[in-house]
């Protein structure tokens, strides 16, 4: 018995839940960011799983899912850079990276 699509999906779901929990429950902005990264990678795992285990002609020859995953990695890197820059900016201004103390995103 080898790897099946279900293994990938379950792994993806577990990773997504971990990331979601981290993003919502953590007070440190860096940790929230890490949670978001984990969620993104969970999606990547499912994408690649679907792409790899698709045997329906002619879609089995397409690499759309894998290419999508590479895109997500790229975008995630850019997003991480922007987010870290914002965190640093906030830190310089408020001396904290605790998301529970930052409430300026209103009105």
């Amino acid at each position, binding site marked *: 018995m080898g790897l099946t699509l279900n293994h990938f999906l379950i792994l993806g779901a577990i990773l997504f839940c971990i990331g*979601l929990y981290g993003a*919502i429950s953590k007070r440190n902005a860096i940790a929230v960011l890490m949670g978001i990264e984990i969620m993104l990678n969970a999606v990547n795992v499912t994408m690649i799983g679907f792409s790899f285990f698709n045997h329906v002609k002619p879609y089995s020859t397409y690499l759309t899912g894998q290419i999508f995953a590479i895109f997500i990695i790229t975008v995630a890197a850019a997003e991480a850079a922007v987010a870290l820059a914002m965190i640093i900016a906030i830190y310089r201004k408020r001396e904290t990276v605790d*998301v*529970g103390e*930052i*409430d300026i*995103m*209103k*009105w």
Partner: protein
Amino acid sequence: MLNLSLWVLLFPLLGFLILGLVGRMMSRAVILTVAWGACGLAFLFATMSFFSMLGTTPASARTVDQVVYTWVNSGSLHITFGQLFDPLSATMLMVVTGVGLLIHIYSAGYMEHDPGFWRFFSFLNFFIFAMVLLVTADNFLFLLVGWALVGLASFLLIGFWYQRQAAVAAAQKALVINVIGDFGLLLAIFLIFNSFGSLNYHDVFGMLGSATAGSATITAICLLLFVACAAKSAQLPLYMWLPDAMEGPTPVSALIHAATMVTAGVYLVARTSPLFEQAPIALNTVAAIGGATALFAATIALFQFDIKRVLAYSTISQLGYMFMSEGVHNYSGGIFHLTTHAYFKALLFLGAGAVIHALSDEQDIRQMGGLRSRLPITFWTFLIAALAISGIPPFAGFWSKDEILSSLLVQATNTGNLWFYILWGTGLLTAALTAFYMFRLLLGIFMGDYRGSEYIHEAPPVMTVPLIVLAVLSVVGGFVGSFGLIGLARWQPLANFLAPLFATVHAPEVSLGWEWTSTALSIGLAVLGILSAWVLYRKGFAYKENRNPLYQLVLHKYYVDEALSLFIVQPVLALGRAATRWLEGGVLDGGSRNLALLLHGTSALLRRLQTGYVRNYALAILLGAVLIIVYYAVRG
């Protein structure tokens, strides 16, 4: 056949655009070149087309409907911008552009010192453009476009001296009354489209037959059309704007009264004669209103002191003649009187303008007198025009007025209807009154001793040359018309020229005996009117205070303006002020203010939901995503 009517239309438009856009920067010479050039080219092309039409036989080949482009093509509504060039529009084009050109030339002298020189000529060209559009349109919708543009042009020109309160008020009055007419025309157009499914003259007239004769719809259409005509041509009860239009510069008065604007109503009735022929009630209304207006305006003109107002009321009176003529099936007679009236009324106004110019804007005849030797050219041309309008042979007005009067009498004897006899009598009485008040005016201005104190100078040649040209036309202009008196049909070139248009008209039988009777009486009465004026005012005009209530009534123009102000204008204004306070201030402004307050209150509450904490937002997104998933899971 050569048809250049599109060019006749384009050049005045071009002149208007050039002068309106860049005229401010032009020198006077350039402005005059553009304005005269535009109007002159229009006249040239109109003349060329006209003579080409004269050379075309048979007469049935003289109608050209030239479609320029399709404007609306939607379902059954198919409207083209087409130009109809036929004997009627050719005659109108000649009058509009010809007399218009003379007025353009004259204006150069009259408006010489006005700072709004370029604006004035721009508007003049626009007026000519609008009028040409009106008379060459081949369907009712473009007729309406021209009709409304003419109203706009008159508004602009009457209110040309917009610094004067009275001029602005007069312009507004003219516009409001004209819009009443436009509304009538619009309703007529709706009815026409509803009944005939087309707006093209040719299509609509083609669908008329014995089945439609006398129907209520046709009568309603014709009455609504006549509302428009009454407003535009200043007939009872919509004449009030025309005397006030005297606030505009005098060349404008000449243009409005002679070549353009007021002739539009007469033109429209002639143009839609196939409709009017099927609506005897409407046609009788036209005749009755025309007769009433002719007499009413003539009596007011008897005792006015402002020379332009006398002329204004005489225009209203003469237009009444034209409508009377059309009311008794004599459409070509109405158009004939329109052309001769254009000559002598333009001449009268331009002559009055020369007098006013000479006296530095004095318009009261009590301040004039004795100008005969000081303004000789003006005097002689004015005399010719006065003789023409009084109906003294062989001047132009005699032939056309007499054709109208004799056709009234012929209609009366043919039908035996008392009302037509009364109408004829009204016409004769008006002729006598016309002769009287015209010579009262003439003698008041030119005879006796000068009563004013201004320095007097004769007008420059640029003003006197148009006077002389118009005087010549006022003498010979009648010969295109009525030698019907001696019973020679081929000596009526204009009537024969227009005849193809009025093929459906039930022309009354002509009786030479009655025509001679009518002619003899009208000449007699005109001479009587002139003699009375001569006896009274030979020594110049002397104003005497007169307490006679009848005299006071006529002097104050029957108090129509006062009554109108009291019963219509003031209530409407009061209503408007009340609406400003209660409807706009209370309901509309108050309503929107309360709505704004309500939204402000609710959003102040809802704003609390937006905490600003990033985790709350993330949780909200999660909740939303879960709800969507649950929705799809449950739905299956």
